[in-house]
Structures are given as structure tokens and as C-alpha cells.
């Protein structure tokens, strides 16, 4: 009796196992660390609803692009968009997945989060090492009444290549001609000053340890770790505190309509309430994939994410894409991803 019961259970389990493997094909992705928390939450939720599994490896944006080019994954992910010419060369397409932002953080006694204000050119001068004391008149002029000490500024930057760095220096290049010619933009650059920490956590740790330091991290990281972040003046001339609302304003005001293959870096967005250093993560897929079934599933996954993933993203400090942008992405899929 018990023996036959055990046997039938075993047979049932075996059958179920076969059924699952036959039905669900795991899709794989690799790339930016920035989206990893959101993607893994979405993947878990998606798995509960559909039984399909999405495996994402956060190996960095450069790695993500390399892996999709090598066709070892179904989708790649990058914080810096690929140029349309490069996409065309490899037969790739790209679309935004989620929005976040980069914020300046400081280690100064007696200053509350959001209290200190910066302008883009001032941030560039600080990171160039030209403004190197907190009592500099340039800082005092836009922060009247703030107790700024006579203390040396120590710049803290990322020591590893990163999409966070890309968005940060892309913004500095847009607002400071000197930064653009002397340093330029990229996932890692030749820093004119300061010390380098590995990852958001490394930058946060160095900033905490060095009095008078200034660094930059993703907003979600600054919020979770209760770091003192600053407000930044936007293109419209308003000082904007980084928040989910001000990132959303940036995403809404960015000129997605006229971008080719969504090749647009959202920094220095024109909206009146837009935070100037908002960032987009991009998903990269083949237009004519080797494995059609899996790529179709990957597309279905992102379709599901746009429809159902907003709450999960917001809870983790990300900003969902504005509805108009989602419509544009689905139109892009219809014309480019014909599988």
C-alpha cells in the first residue's frame, strides 16, 4: 500500500517535472548592476504568475553588451544607450526598462538631506578640483545661511566602470565645457581629483569615512542608507531635490519622440520640475534572434513588466516609465521585433 503510494507520488512528481521543463524555457539576461534589484523582483513576481523564469546576471553594462553580442544571453542591459549605428551593425534593437537617478552626497556636519544646493557647473568645478574648499564663495552664493565650514573638499568617485558614472559625467559634460574637453564621458573616466570607491557601497563608505567629502550614488542607495544628498539646479533654473516625482518629471519631459532607437541620455532634461541627473536603463535584444521562442518570451516578460511591475519598481526606489513612452516602446517592438 505505502509502497504503491510512494511510487505513484514519485511518478506524479516526475511527470510534473517534465511538464514544467517542457512548458517553461528559462530566459537569460545579463548587464547593468543598476537594474538588478528591480529585475530580480520582477522576475520573482513574473514567475509566480506565469511559471516562467528570468535569470539575470548583474555583470555590468559593458559585460551586458559583450554578452548579447556574443549571443550567450537573450537580452543584454546597459545604463548607457548603444548608438543606433552600432545597433544596426549587429542587428540589435534597444528600449528603456526603468528610470532612476544619480545624486550628489556630502559628508558635512549639521546639514540635512536635500538642504545643500548645487548647480551643474559648480559640481563640475568641484569634481575638476578647481573648487576645493567648502567655504568657496561659489558654494556660499547659492547656499545662503548654510553653515559651510572651512574644510577641504575631497571628491569620491567610482573606481569601477559604471552606468552611474556614465550618467554623472554625461551631465557634467553637458553643463561644463571644461569638463567636456578635459575629461569627457564614459563608464569610467580619468578623474582629475579625489579617491575611488568600488560600487555604490564603496563610494558611500568613503564618503562616510572622510569628513568634507562629496560623492555620487543612485538615489535608492542614498535613501536606504540615509545619506545626506543635495539638490541640483535644472535646465529651467529651479533647484530640484531628487525624488521619484522629480525623476518622473525628467522622464516625461525628455524628447523620446524624436529619438532613434531610444538613443537618448536623460540628463539635463528640460522640464520645469525635472531633476537634472535622471538616468535610464536600456534593454538590448536581437531583431532577428537565434532562438525565436526565448526572445519572444523575453519580450513578453517586459510587456508584463510595463503593465504590472510599477509598484514593485517604486517600492525599490525606481521610477516606472511614463505611459506615453511605454506606448512608443510597444510600437517599436511591433516594427522591429517581428518574432
Amino acid at each position, binding site marked *: 500500500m505505502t509502497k504503491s503510494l510512494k511510487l505513484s507520488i514519485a511518478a506524479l512528481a516526475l511527470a510534473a517535472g517534465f511538464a514544467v521543463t517542457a512548458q517553461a524555457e528559462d530566459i537569460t539576461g545579463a548587464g547593468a548592476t543598476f537594474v538588478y534589484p528591480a529585475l530580480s523582483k520582477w522576475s520573482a513576481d513574473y514567475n509566480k504568475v506565469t511559471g516562467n523564469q528570468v535569470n539575470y546576471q548583474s*555583470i*555590468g*553594462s*559593458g*559585460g551586458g*553588451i*559583450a554578452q548579447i553580442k556574443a549571443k550567450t544571453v537573450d537580452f543584454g542591459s546597459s545604463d548607457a544607450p548603444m548608438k543606433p549605428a552600432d545597433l544596426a551593425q549587429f542587428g540589435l534593437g534597444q528600449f528603456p526598462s526603468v528610470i532612476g537617478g544619480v545624486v550628489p552626497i556630502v559628508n558635512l556636519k549639521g546639514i540635512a538631506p536635500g538642504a545643500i544646493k548645487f548647480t551643474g557647473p559648480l559640481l563640475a568645478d568641484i569634481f575638476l578640483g578647481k573648487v576645493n574648499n567648502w567655504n568657496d564663495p561659489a558654494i556660499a552664493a547659492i547656499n545662503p545661511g548654510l553653515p559651510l565650514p572651512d574644510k*577641504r573638499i*575631497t571628491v569620491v568617485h567610482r*573606481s*569601477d*566602470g*559604471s552606468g552611474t558614472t556614465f550618467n554623472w559625467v554625461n551631465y557634467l559634460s553637458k553643463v561644463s565645457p571644461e569638463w567636456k574637453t578635459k*575629461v*569627457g*564621458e*564614459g*563608464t*569610467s*573616466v*580619468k*578623474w582629475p581629483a*579625489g*579617491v*575611488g*570607491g*568600488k560600487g555604490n557601497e*564603496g563610494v558611500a*563608505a*568613503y564618503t562616510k*569615512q*572622510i*569628513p568634507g567629502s562629496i560623492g555620487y550614488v543612485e538615489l535608492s542607495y542614498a535613501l536606504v542608507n540615509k545619506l545626506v544628498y543635495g539638490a541640483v539646479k535644472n535646465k529651467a533654473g529651479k533647484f530640484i531635490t531628487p525624488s521619484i516625482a522629480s525623476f518622473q518629471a525628467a522622464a516625461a519631459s525628455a524628447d523620446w519622440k524624436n529619438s532613434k532607437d531610444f538613443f537618448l541620455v536623460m540628463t539635463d532634461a528640460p522640464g520645469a520640475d525635472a531633476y537634472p541627473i535622471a538616468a535610464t536603463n536600456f534593454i538590448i535584444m536581437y531583431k532577428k534572434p537565434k532562438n525565436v521562442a526565448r526572445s519572444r518570451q523575453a519580450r513578453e516578460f517586459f510587456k508584463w513588466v510595463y503593465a504590472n511591475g510599477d509598484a514593485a519598481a517604486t517600492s525599490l526606489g525606481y521610477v516606472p516609465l511614463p505611459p506615453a513612452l511605454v506606448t512608443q516602446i510597444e510600437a517599436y517592438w511591433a516594427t522591429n521585433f517581428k518574432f
Partner: protein
Amino acid sequence: MSVASNTLAMEVDDRASKDGRNDRMFRWAVTAAGFFVLLTLLAAGLSMFWGGREAFQTFGFGFLTSTDWDPVQQKFGALVPIYGTVVTAAIAMLIAVPISFGIALFLTEVSPTWMRTPIGAAIELLAGIPSIIYGMWGLFVLVPYLGEHVFPWLDENVGPLPIIGKLFQGPPLGIGMLTAGLVLAIMVIPFISSVMREVFLTVPTRLKESAYALGSTTTEVVWHIVLPYTRSAVIGGIFLGLGRALGETMAVTFVLGNAHFLTTSLLEPGNSIAATIANEFTEADSPLYLSSLIALGFLLFVVTFIVLSIAKFMLMGLKRREGN
């Protein structure tokens, strides 16, 4: 009688041939093991040289002398990481070798017997701590302390001195080459001291007791009996520590500051070869960038080889002088 001796002779013959075969097999096995090391070393070196050939071709000899490290302009040079690697390892050895001597000598010559086991166990436990723990301890405990108390004092009191002052000028960040050297020193002390302790124990009691009997003090016994007897093994232990200090990655990355600047001050942040590779490998998105990082790996190989060779030559010189 003759029959018995015959079988014995046959047995001996049989044994001899079997022994010969076993001996040959054993010889082959150990030779293969020996060559395996050479082969691995050669393969690792060659593949890194091959991976870095694009960087060597592009920058030529300038790769060794340039302080540039600009991923945007695609200009790379290895001088800053090489300098940082050598300087931090040198600081580490400067601190670790005397302390390790002290620990090993205390344990073998001076300490009461009951203390030897707990201290010996502590050293072995220290050797087993993962390097990331040392890094975190360095960053969260050592860095704030150095930044608040030690570095400002060095900057004020040692900084103005001629020549040596150059090494101790700078902002008191608490992060920098001196901090990295300190953390490395603590990491290599267990390696060096446990080797030293083992070899000091091999000194025959007879020699030591004869010296004591002739009226030598403990210090004299250590300098004239223990150290000369164990010199080459002691230097082997130091090499082991030096190798670890040159190649250590994680702990150094935490406290070194990872900044590509060439500076004489030990209080300023710098960069090391291993830290640069660990930091930048994942996002090295152009072939030349990647190749430059692999070339750095090859240079770490070369640096380690040169440092160890110099040490070997010094040892040979020491032996020759002793012979005279």
C-alpha cells in the same frame, strides 16, 4: 642448501627488478609534478602576455613609464599601479618582518610553555581570515582612527622635515598607501611568523645549550645560533609574505583610494595593479582597455619575478660573505 640459496637469489633478483620499476614510476610522477609548476607558470605568463599584446603594441615601452590612465581617450600607462604595488608591499614588509621575528622568537625562545599553544593558534586563525574582512576592518576601524589622529600628526610633525617629510605630507583622509601598507602588514604577519616559528623549532637544542653553557645571553643565542642556522628558511617565509603583499587585491582596494595619481606622499591615495584589474575588469568595454588590464596582470608577474630575484641574489651574496 644450494637450492635454498638459489631461491633467495631469485627472490632478490625479482625484488630488484620490481624495485627498479617502482622507482622509475615514482621518479616520473614527481618529475611530472615538478614540471607541472613550471608549465602552469609559463602558460599563465604567456597567455597574459598574449592577452596584453595589443596594449604593448600600441603603447610600446611607454606603457611602463606613462602615468596616464584615461579610458575616454584610450590612453593607458602602468607606472601608477606598479609604483603603488611596490610601495605598499615595501611598507608592509618593513612593518611585518620585524614584528614576525619578534613573535616567532618570543614563542620559541622566551615565552613560558603554556603560552605557546594559544598564541600559535591565534596566528593560524589570523592567517585564515578572508582578505575582505581585513579590508572592511581597515576601512571602518583603521581609516577613521588614522584620519583623525595619526595622519594629521604626521603631516604636522614629520611633513616639514627635509627629504623624509615628502613622504608624509598631505590631506588626512585616512585612506592611502600607508594605510594599505599597514593592512597588508597585518595580513602577512601570520604567514611570515608561522614559517619562522616552525624553522626556529628545528634548531638543535644541542647547539643552543652549548652556547648557553659557554655563557651566552638569549640575545646572543638568537643572533649567533638561531638566525644563522635558519637563515634561508626564514627568507623563504619572508618571500611567501612578500608574494601575498604584492598580489593582494580586496583588502587593498578598500583602503588604497584607487586613484590614478603618482605622488611621493604615503598619505595620498594611489592604485595597485591587482586593485586596478579587480575594479575595472567588468566594465572594460574596448579591446584596448581590456588588453591594457591583462598587460597589467603580466607586469605584476614580472614585478614579482624581479623582486624575488633581487632577494635571491641578496641571499647568495650573504652566503658568499659567510664563506669567506
